[in-house]
């Protein structure tokens, strides 16, 4: 479970202080998929980076399974699986070596790594490229490798930044099923997206973010009721107050 409490983060830019995240709070429960939905530049990635301890909030707190992400960063990282925005797969290593590298950094032994890799390969459908060097991988292959790498230590909490970005329909479907399986295993899954259909299909709890603030949150049904609109797209537009950055 991940609890986020009134997060703030500002950056210095040439034009002055940019408030990337300006008061974000939500709770992502176990056995649920929580989606951060918002236009480009809304502060989703910055919020997630504070969740996975790479950024320190200016104000507010993140608790992962009850542990503070700033004070107890190493412990929090152990219970997190992270797919960053840029996948960061090593090109000269094979997919298997990429996964094993992170397994070892998480302190796993070779047998555990091998067993977990087999399971993830089967679940994500990576059989035909698992022993190929990542140079020349398609976007989908890279994403799958990065996801397997993020999950090799069997984390309770999974954070995915735009997981379906750049994937074709079939890969997206497969990935969706994989994420639902993670949810069924009782894990806490958080993902960010700017695509409403994606979020509506997957997420039990949707947090709409724009300009660094939470505009509304709840289930898809609740959001429709809240905005008084018939479909989610109209609800989204009404809730963020503009059509900026909207993609379907």
């Amino acid at each position, binding site marked *: 479970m991940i609890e986020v409490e009134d997060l703030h983060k500002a950056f210095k830019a040439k034009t002055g202080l940019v408030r990337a995240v300006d008061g974000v709070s939500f709770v992502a429960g176990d056995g649920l998929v929580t989606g951060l939905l918002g236009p480009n530049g809304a502060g989703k990635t910055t919020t997630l980076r504070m969740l996975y301890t790479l950024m320190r909030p200016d104000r507010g707190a993140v608790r992962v399974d009850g542990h503070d992400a700033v004070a107890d960063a190493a412990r929090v990282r152990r219970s997190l699986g992270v797919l960053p925005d*840029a996948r960061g797969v090593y090109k000269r290593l094979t997919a298997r070596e990429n996964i094993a590298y992170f397994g070892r*950094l998480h302190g796993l032994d070779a047998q555990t790594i091998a067993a977990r890799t087999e399971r993830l390969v089967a679940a994500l459908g990576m059989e035909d490229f698992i022993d190929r060097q990542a140079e020349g991988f398609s976007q989908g292959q890279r994403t799958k490798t990065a996801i397997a790498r993020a999950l090799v230590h069997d984390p309770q909490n999974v954070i995915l930044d735009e997981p379906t970005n750049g994937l074709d329909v079939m890969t997206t479907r497969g990935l969706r099923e994989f994420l639902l399986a993670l949810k069924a295993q009782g894990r806490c899954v958080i993902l960010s997206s700017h695509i409403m259909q994606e979020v509506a299909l997957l997420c039990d709890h949707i947090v709409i973010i724009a300009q660094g603030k939470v505009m509304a949150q709840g289930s898809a049904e609740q959001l429709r009721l809240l905005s008084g609109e018939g479909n989610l797209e109209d609800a989204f537009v009404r809730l963020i107050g503009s059509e900026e950055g909207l993609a379907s």
Partner: protein
Amino acid sequence: MKALWTVMRKELLDLFRDRRTLMLGLFMGPLLFPLLILGMGSLAESRARTQLESTLELPVVGAEHAPNLVAFLDTLDIRAIEPPADPEAAIRNQAHEVILQIPAEYPSQWRESRPAVVEILYDSSRQDSRIPVARVESALRGYSRQVATLRLLVRGVDPALGEAVVPGRRDLSTPEARRGMVLAFLPYLLILSAFLGGAYLVIDITAGERERQSLEPLLATPSSREAIMSGKIAAACAFGMLSLLLILLSFKLSFQFAGSGPFRGMDVSLAAMAKLLAILAPMVLIGTTLLTLISASVKSVKEAQSYMSVLMLLPIIPTVILLVSPVKNQLWMFAVPFLAQNQAILMVLRAEALAPLEWLVYVGAGFGLGLLLWLIAARLYHREKLAISA
């Protein structure tokens, strides 16, 4: 500690998969440096030998005024040839290295036993003219002394009266040390290889990885940043030592095969090579940690690389200082980076032994500086900006 090994193994595997970079990194130096040193050495030597031993063709202006002198020069393998129309221009436009000018007054001065003036025209800024000018000068001195001795004898004076002090020379340098002098720039090549040999690798695994955005997931693992950074530094140091080993071996082999070159008798035993490797080890650490520090503080690979031109000059500084004002070896020198390596390498090549205290200061100062740079780099690795490049 385990994370350190994991990172080191991964970085080396990653590097060794990149065959072309690896080959260039490992074998360029070992192939080029010996060629450079041996080639330049033998070129200089053969040039000097031809200039010293071959017949020197000397344009003589007014040769008709001094037939005896010209005949004497001929016995020393200096053959007089027809002078160019404008001797001064001929020197200036480098048509001739040296021209002898015998004025018209020469015969009368000669007959009256007054000092007869002859002129040697040359350009002192030309390296090439050094040996021919010295040959002509020494031939003229020899002729002058011979004739002067005869004149004194004719007048019944002992020629030895003309020489109050006779300086004699005894060269006490060891043969190894003389080779060492020829090799003034070998230390620079070795220090530079140690200092920056793995530079592109170091820059790549910190600044490059940041640019490729793979540092973000890596730093989100529970491994400590110190361990990750140390693993990268260890990988770069291992690579640096391997490439140094190859360079030293190639020097050893080429010096041995060079036969009668100017480097014969230099200490290239395996023990000396091992000592050189030990001497260069702190330099490898200093270079790697310094570059890691730089890579962790800059925005891009390009920015990190622009530091390289300055860094390449650092190892030259002691060589230049020693060239301008040579000083005796003192203990404090072994604590100054670059200067210490320079002195220690020269001592090994000259087959002189380093005292235990000198070793102690050397190793202490070298690794001490490496540790300091490591600490600063580790601080920079904790910066929030490091993980995030987008």
